């Protein structure tokens, strides 16, 4: 169990394993304690200057000590709600107008925006056909070929097919 908790904290458990473990933690009274101790150990290892022990208990205590405000606030809330609703409606209208204008004025706006998107997320960019030779050269010496056998050559085929004119 302890081993599993430490694996969970390292983020190395699979989703279903993690879920069943969290269920167990909720059921067993002793485990939340372990959980805290492990985090304490982690904190000590990472930054020995600031150690928070029993932080959650202390926060709970402090919140208990806070005075409770009993003044009526109904109207203020309602008014704020109305403002939010109004501004939301206004911005919806604005979006509509902009969308309508862009449709009217220039049909190229939308494709341009679509093209800019990949630049924001460089990791999702596809490898360009011009780089295929690097992939083939790399593939030759990758240990994947030893395990997957001939199947690994399908990568080479699909790379070659990209550049076929």
């Amino acid at each position, binding site marked *: 169990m302890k081993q599993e908790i430490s694996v969970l904290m390292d983020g*190395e458990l699979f989703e279903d394993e993690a879920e069943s473990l969290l269920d167990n933690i909720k059921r067993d009274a002793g485990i939340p304690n372990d959980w805290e101790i492990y985090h304490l150990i982690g904190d000590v290892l990472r930054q020995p200057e600031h150690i928070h022990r029993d932080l959650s208990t202390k926060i709970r205590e402090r919140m208990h000590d806070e005075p409770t405000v009993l003044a009526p606030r109904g109207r203020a809330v309602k008014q704020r709600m109305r403002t939010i609703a109004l501004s939301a409606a206004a911005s919806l209208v604005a979006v509509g107008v902009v969308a309508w204008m862009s449709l009217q004025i220039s049909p190229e706006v939308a494709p341009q925006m679509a093209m800019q998107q990949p630049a924001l997320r460089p990791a999702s960019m596809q*490898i360009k056909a011009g*780089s295929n030779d690097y992939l*083939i050269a*790399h593939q030759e010496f*990758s240990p994947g070929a*030893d395990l997957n*056998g001939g199947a690994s050559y399908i990568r080479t085929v699909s790379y070659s097919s990209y550049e076929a004119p």
Partner: protein
Amino acid sequence: MRLLVVFCGLLLAVVTNVYAEERPVGLDWLEVVAFAGHQTDYSGVFVYQYDNRDETSSIIHVTGSNGEYEKLESLDGPKREIIRHDGEVWSYVNHKMVQVESQQGRSSFPSLLPEQLSALSANYQAKLLGMERVAGYNAQVILFQPKDNLRYTHKIWVHTDSGLLLKAAVLGDKNKVAEQYAFTQLQIGGKIDRSWVKECDSAGLHGKPGLQQSAKDISPTNSGWVADTLPSGFKKTMEIQRKMRGKHAPVTQIVYSDGLSAISIFIEPNDQDEDDVDGLSSRGAVNLYHRIMDQNLITVVGEVPPRTVMQVLSSVRYNGK
């Protein structure tokens, strides 16, 4: 006396048991897979999935006195065919059979070296995950979980009787599949079509000119380039100079491997006018990162996460010969 014998026997049993646990069982399976993949005759259909695409191909693998023969054919999209005889590979490109790869020096098997296996056990945790059925066969599922976040998780499904790899997946962040091979239909042994093997030998494929390079265009080198921050366990397996299409000067390639995946560093003089070559791109589990450093174009390619290729590239420097 008899008691002593029983005690010794018990002790021995315990000791061997402890010893057996020392060596992760997953590694034994890897050796079995590497061996079976080369030694078994089989034919089947498999699906290769990456980046929301999938490609279905048929494969026939037979061994003979002349070595291993293998034929791969794509079943969807444009017709593509690959024939391999040991280290030599031919492919149909524009309706002509041309050689795409030739490694005379490459031994046909087994390719997993003991030092690779020890690097593997130092950097991955091997776990047996139980049995599953793939393509109608019982398979042992084995997970290789990296001990750091600089490599991907590998999951393999091995046929328990033959040791053939029935399915293999590379898992990225949050255990999402980055790429996967899986047999959907497979025949092991028995009557397998061998007619094309004779054709392959008699058609004189061996004399055909190469598509990109023959062995003489690749030569070992000591370039003086080094990378300082490779993830632990990555050992240099190769340093070569090679000609590449469209490049005036030869390109230096340095290959590192941790037993399950490899990282290649390519160094070449930057003779391109474009400045926008910098950047990261990916296909399946492979990530590629380009950067220009002091008039040189450096490219890092590997079946490792984006952060790893970027980290490796930033540590590349010229150390002098």
